[in-house]
C-alpha cells in the first residue's frame, strides 16, 4: 500500500529544468533508496517533499492526502536526518529530544515514553544527560536518528546517513535503521554508497536528469539486468 506518491512533479529554476515529470511511489514499510548522480535533482525532490521548495507542477499524496493541502500533516509524520549533525551540541540528548519533540507538538509524557523506547532501541540508554558535543561520531549519528523519530513519524527521510563513518559504524547505523523500520517507520534514504543501499533497501529509484529512470525492487532489477551488483546496474541506467 502506497504511503507516499509522486505524480508528475516538475520544477525549474529560471531556464533550468530540474525535475521533469517525476512519478513514483513508496509503500508503507519500505526502505526506499533514492540514487542518482550529483545534480540529478535528488536534493530538489527532497526539498519539495519537506515543503522547503514549491512545486511548479504535479502533486504529492501522503496516505492519500494531497500534499499541498496537508503539508503540516506530512511534516508531523515525517522525520528527517541529514548527513550533518543537526543537533544542538550544547544540549544533552534528552534536551534535544524534548526540544524537537515539542516542536512536533508532543507533550512531555509522550516525549518521555518515546525517548525511553528510542534510547534503548538506539543503544543510547544511560547517555541521555550527556551533552551532544561530548558524544562520539557513532553516538552522534544515533542521536540524530533518535531526534528525527522522537515524534514517531511514519516516514523517515535519511540523507547520506552513513557518510564519513567507518564500515563498522556504518553497519551499526544500518542495523538501527532497520530496527526503526521494523517498528513501522517507512524509510526514504539517499546515498552514494550503492552497496549499502543494495544490502539494506527493498526498493531503489534511480534518478537521471530530473526524471526517475527506474524504480524497482532489487528482485525486479535482477530480473531485468541479471545477477550483478547494483552499482553496475546503476552505471548501466545512467549511462
Amino acid at each position, binding site marked *: 500500500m502506497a504511503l507516499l506518491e509522486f505524480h508528475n512533479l516538475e520544477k525549474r529554476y529560471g531556464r533550468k529544468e530540474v525535475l521533469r515529470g517525476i512519478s513514483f511511489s513508496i509503500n508503507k514499510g519500505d526502505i526506499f533508496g533514492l540514487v542518482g548522480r550529483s545534480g540529478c535533482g535528488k536534493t530538489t525532490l527532497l526539498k519539495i517533499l*519537506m515543503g522547503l*521548495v514549491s512545486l511548479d507542477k504535479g502533486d504529492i499524496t501522503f496516505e492519500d492526502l494531497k500534499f499541498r493541502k496537508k503539508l503540516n500533516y506530512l*511534516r508531523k509524520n515525517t522525520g528527517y536526518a*541529514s548527513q550533518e549533525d*543537526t*543537533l544542538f551540541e550544547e544540549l544533552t540528548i534528552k534536551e534535544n529530544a524534548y526540544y524537537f519533540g515539542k516542536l*512536533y507538538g508532543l507533550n512531555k509524557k509522550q516525549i518521555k515514553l518515546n525517548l525511553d523506547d528510542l534510547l534503548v532501541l538506539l543503544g543510547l540508554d544511560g547517555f541521555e544527560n550527556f551533552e551532544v558535543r561530548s558524544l562520539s561520531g557513532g553516538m552522534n549519528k544515533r542521536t540524530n536518528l533518535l531526534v528525527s523519530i522522537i515524534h514517531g513519524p511514519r516516514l523517515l527521510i535519511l540523507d547520506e546517513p552513513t557518510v564519513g563513518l567507518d564500515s563498522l559504524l556504518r553497519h551499526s547505523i544500518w542495523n538501527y535503521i532497520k530496527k526503526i523500520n521494523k517498528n513501522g517507520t517507512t524509510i526514504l534514504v539517499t546515498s552514494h554508497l550503492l552497496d549499502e543501499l543494495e544490502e539494506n533497501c527493498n526498493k531503489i529509484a534511480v534518478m537521471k536528469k530530473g526524471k526517475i529512470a527506474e524504480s524497482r525492487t532489487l528482485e525486479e532489477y535482477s530480473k531485468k539486468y541479471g545477477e550483478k551488483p547494483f552499482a553496475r546496474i546503476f552505471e548501466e541506467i545512467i549511462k
Partner: protein
Amino acid sequence: MNIFNIFNKNIKTVSRNFSYFAVLFICPILLILISGAVLNSASLNNIRVGIVGGNVQEIRNAKNYDSFALCMEDLVHFKVVACLNFNYIDGHENLDIYISNSNKLVSIYTRQFVLKDILNMQQDLFEKTSSEINSQISVYSGSILNARTDLVNARSELEEQEKLLTDYKNDLEGIRRDFDEVYYPLKQMQPQITQIRTDLTNQQNTINSELSIIKNNINNIKSNLQTLNTYLSSKLNSGDYDYASGLVSSALLGITSIESSLNVIEQANKVNSDLIGVVDSLDNIIQQLDEIKQTLDKLDSDLGISIQRTRESKDKINAFINSLDNVNQELGNFQSDIGSKKFSYTLEDAFVIPDDPVLFAFPLLIALVITFTSLVLSNMFILKEVNHPSYDREILTPAKDMEFLISDYLVNLFFVGIQASVLFLVGIYWVGVSLNEIWMFVLAIFFVASIFIFIGMSFAYLIRNQSLSMLITLFSVMILIVLSDILAPSILAGEVVKFFIDSNPFVVLQRILSDGIVLNRPLGDSYFAFVRMGILFIMTFFIAYVCKKISKERR
C-alpha cells in the same frame, strides 16, 4: 613569497564575491552620502526659536508667541530650542534668552546661533535704527532752529514795527494835542464867526444900499445944479450969474467931494467884503479841521488796532518760539536718550540640570549600548541559528515560522534586558540616576530594543554569510549614529533629514532617557515618540517575518 600568494588569494576571494565587493564599496559610499546629507542639511538657520514680544522677521524659523509661558511650553516639548523674550527694563530694551540645555551639543549650537545671528542682528538693527533716528532728529532739530531763527527775526521786525507804530501814534497824539489847541478854540468861535459874517454881510448890504441911495441923490443934485447953472446963465447977469454959478460950482465941488467920500466909503465897504471872505475862509478852515480831526481820530484808532495786532502777532510768535524751544529740547533729550540707551540680554538655561557630565552622557550611553547590542546580538544569534545544521531540522517541523520568530526575538530581548538592567543598576548606584517612572523607561527600551532586534534578525535571515551580514549590521549601526544628534544635532537639520533623525529609534530612546534621567520630566510627554516607536515595532516585526520566510525559501 607566501605573503604575496596569500594576499593574492585574499584579493581574488573578495573581488570575486560580488556581495563582499558591493558591501565594501556601497556601504561606505552610502555612509558618506548619508553623512553628507546630514552635514549639508545642517545649518544654524534651521534652528527653530520662539519669540515673545518682538518681531524678528529675518529669522526663517522664528515662531512668534503671545506669551512667554506658551513659548516655554513648546521649548519643554522640543518644538523650539530657545525662547527669546523681548522686554523693557528701566526703559532699556532687554532680551531674555532661554536655551534648551537638554543636550550639550544642542545647547552649544543654539547659543552660537542666538549670539551670532539674533543678537548681532538685533544690535545692528538697533544701532541702525538709532543712527537713523539720530540723523532724522538732527535734521528736524536743524529745521526747527531755522524756523525759530526766522520767527525771532519776524518777532524783531514786529517789535520794530510796533515801536514805529507807537512812535507814530505818539507823534499823532502830539499833533492831535496841537491840533486840538487850535481846533477847539476855533470850533468854539465858529458860531461867533458865523454871526460876524452875517453881521458883516448885513452891514455891507446896508452900506451899499445907503451908498446907492446917496449916490442917486447926489446924481440928482448934481443934475439939478447943472440945470440950475444953465438956467441961471440965462436968467442972471453975468455977475449974478457968475456969482450964482460960483455957488453952483462950489456946490458941485462939494458934491464931488461927497462922491469921493462915498467912493472911499464904498471902498471901505469892499474891505468888509474881504473880511467876510476871511470869515468864510475861517469857516471853511474849521470844516476842514473837522475832517482832519476825523482823519486823525481814525488814524489814531487804526494805529491803536495795528499796534494791538502787532503785539498779538508778536505774542503768537513768542508762543510758537517757546513751543519750538520745547520741541527742540525734547528732541535733544530724546537724542541723548537714544545715545545713552542700552540693549541688554541675558542667557538662561531652560532646564535645571545637575552639572554632571556622566549623568548627562548616561542616556546616550544606554541608547548606544541598547542599539549596538540589539542589532549585533540579534544578528549574530540568528546567523548562528540559520547557519547551524539544526536549522534545517527546525524548519522541517510543523512549528510555525511566527513561533520561531517570536521565540528568537524574546531570547534576544532577554539578553538585551539583562544588559539594560545592569546599566540601570550602574546608573542608579554609581551615577545617581533617579528613576521615577521606571516602567516608562522599560517600555521605551522594550520598543527600541525590539525594533533593532527585528532589524538585526532581518539582516541575518536575508544574508546568511556571517561576515557579510555582520558588516552590514555594523554599517547600519554607523548609519544610525550618523543619523542622530551626535554628528549634527537635528535642530540644525533640514526638514527631510530631521524627519529621519526624529524617526531614528536610537535618537528617540536617547531623548526619552534624557527626558527622564537628565531633565526629570514626566515621560508621558513622550507620547508621540512612543506611538512612533509602536508603529516601527510592528513594521520591523513584519519585515523580520517576511525575511524569515525568504530565508526558508532559499534553503
